């Protein structure tokens, strides 16, 4: 028997009556899929079940300045505002940088050039840096290096301390890959014909990108931004040392203030509360608020992205 015959034998797929293996294989993989979805459902259901009773409009818009551990008085408004602020500032920084990088990678770069490969490598690498290392980086670079540098030995440091701006910048470095990858995907989904038509009509490359390509890619850019917000909204480790406050009476006034944060508050309530049984309803309601925020953002991103992918398949 020759080697080719052996190979042909191995790939001999004749049906042999009831295919038990096929049944088992489909069953096992299907069950695994179901199992993952079931866990997700259990987590969400558990949090909704326990948190719903306390979760109210008053809870969402109440301040924490009375007593953040009192079920009847505590609200999460300062945390919601803190989280929203840091995410907003982050978006303002990360979206332009991410979109421009993606434009370079798809419109300008030669895909085989060394620079392109290194940029891609760096983007993928950035996506895998542990969140706590981002926290250390924020402390070491933004606060100690840039912040102290800006203060230049002033009597009262303005920049060289944890603040919203530093937390936001740290998060924007962390979420950069999300924006780049999502934008790139949608840029690639645009048919080359569109660009060529624009160029043929006499538009320059820059005009083509700004007026034709980017508007077309808007859903993808949106996806990237939303994913970044969803991811950053729930991250705690990078802001531990760069801006999150355990407790503040007032809302932050400027970007150099610290802030209270939803995710960090979940951590405080589950580990540092004075009476874990009494504060349990607040804890679950806070988790519910955080989960609603991140999951709804992710859901929107998923829907927009599915549309982009559909169009991409259609165009190719």
């Amino acid at each position, binding site marked *: 028997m020759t080697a080719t015959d052996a190979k042909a034998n191995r790939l001999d797929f004749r049906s042999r009556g009831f295919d038990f293996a096929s049944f088992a294989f489909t069953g096992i993989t299907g069950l695994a899929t179901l199992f993952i979805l079931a866990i997700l459902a259990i987590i969400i259901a558990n949090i909704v079940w326990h948190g719903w009773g306390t979760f109210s409009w008053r809870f969402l818009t109440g301040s924490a300045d009375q007593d953040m551990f009192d079920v009847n008085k505590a609200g999460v408004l300062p945390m919601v505002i803190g989280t929203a602020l840091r995410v907003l500032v982050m978006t303002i920084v990360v979206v332009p940088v991410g979109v421009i990088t993606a434009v370079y990678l798809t419109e300008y770069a030669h895909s085989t050039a060394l620079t392109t490969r290194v940029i891609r490598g760096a983007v993928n690498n950035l996506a895998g840096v542990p969140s706590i290392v981002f926290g250390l980086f924020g402390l070491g670079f933004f606060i100690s290096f840039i912040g102290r540098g800006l203060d230049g030995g002033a009597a009262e440091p*303005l920049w060289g301390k944890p603040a919203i701006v530093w937390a936001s910048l740290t998060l924007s470095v962390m979420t950069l890959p999300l924006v780049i990858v999502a934008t790139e995907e949608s840029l690639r989904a645009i048919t080359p014909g569109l660009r060529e038509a624009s160029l043929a009509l006499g538009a320059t490359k820059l005009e083509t990108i700004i007026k034709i390509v980017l508007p077309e890619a808007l859903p993808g850019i949106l996806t990237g931004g939303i994913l970044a917000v969803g991811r950053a909204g729930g991250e705690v480790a990078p802001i531990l040392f760069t801006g999150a*406050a*355990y*407790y503040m009476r007032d809302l932050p006034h400027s970007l150099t203030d610290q802030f209270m944060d939803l995710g960090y508050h979940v951590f405080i309530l589950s*580990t540092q*509360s004075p009476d874990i049984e009494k504060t349990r309803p607040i804890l679950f309601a806070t988790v519910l608020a955080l989960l609603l925020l991140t999951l709804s953002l992710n859901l929107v991103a998923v829907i927009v992205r599915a549309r982009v992918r559909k169009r991409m398949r259609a165009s190719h």
Partner: protein
Amino acid sequence: MKNMTSNLLRCASLAAALVLAASAQAGSITVKGSDTLVVLAQKWAETYMSKHPDTKIQVTGGGTGTGLAALQNKSTDLCNASRKIKPTEQATSIKAFGKRPTEYKVCLDGLSVYVSADNPVKELTVAQIADIFNGKTTNWKQVGGPDARITVYSRENSSGTYEFFKEHVLSGKDFAASAQTMPGTAAVLQAVAKDKHGIGYGGAAYGAGAKSLKIKKDDASPGVEPTEENVIKGTYPIWRYLYIYVNPALDKGDIANYLNWLRGDEGQKVVKDVGYFPLPKEFRK
């Protein structure tokens, strides 16, 4: 990115400068430091501000180390500390502003030793507790309980509570390596409440969920409960001071008034409300 950052910084600093100019009125005090003290500091600030509306006090936590570092680079006026300042930190303070920070004792905290409500053991001597926490005693049988392995719950080694317990109960020896460390007293309490054979320790201001043991100084003395009366009398053996540190150059005007107030009768009443123990008379203002 660099361009963006610097532009952003310029805008932000402009905005910040405006806000600062508006809020830089007299009588603004910032307090930072130990998370153990943050709730108390907040209550103090609220009560004081309701009586002195022209003074504005801002309280944040972050940890004793963070607070002392902030004190040194002058980003806070007062530092809450759940432990005494360390020599290295004193040295950095001297380098930063030429003097040691002034230390004020602000209240007392009794540390309770917690066990599960189901545990028949009601009292232990300090020596027995030390043996349990440093891993010499491993079974409840050895201290008059059921035949079961002891699970030891401790605090994060970064907390002032941990250091205090280590110095004063274990006389400086290490905790058993098998001790689980919890990120907060509440977590310790929760763990002990759920673990029939668990033992843990924490501030007396926390409380519900588990049973706190009576402590005996030695075999001969009676078991004492961690009540206010016993802590102030000194019969309850495990207690500590909590501190505030301040740059001596700033210890005047509003800040000095505030410090005097919180160590006076009014401030010490707040201490009681929050669940810590007030200073004995001789330390009051």
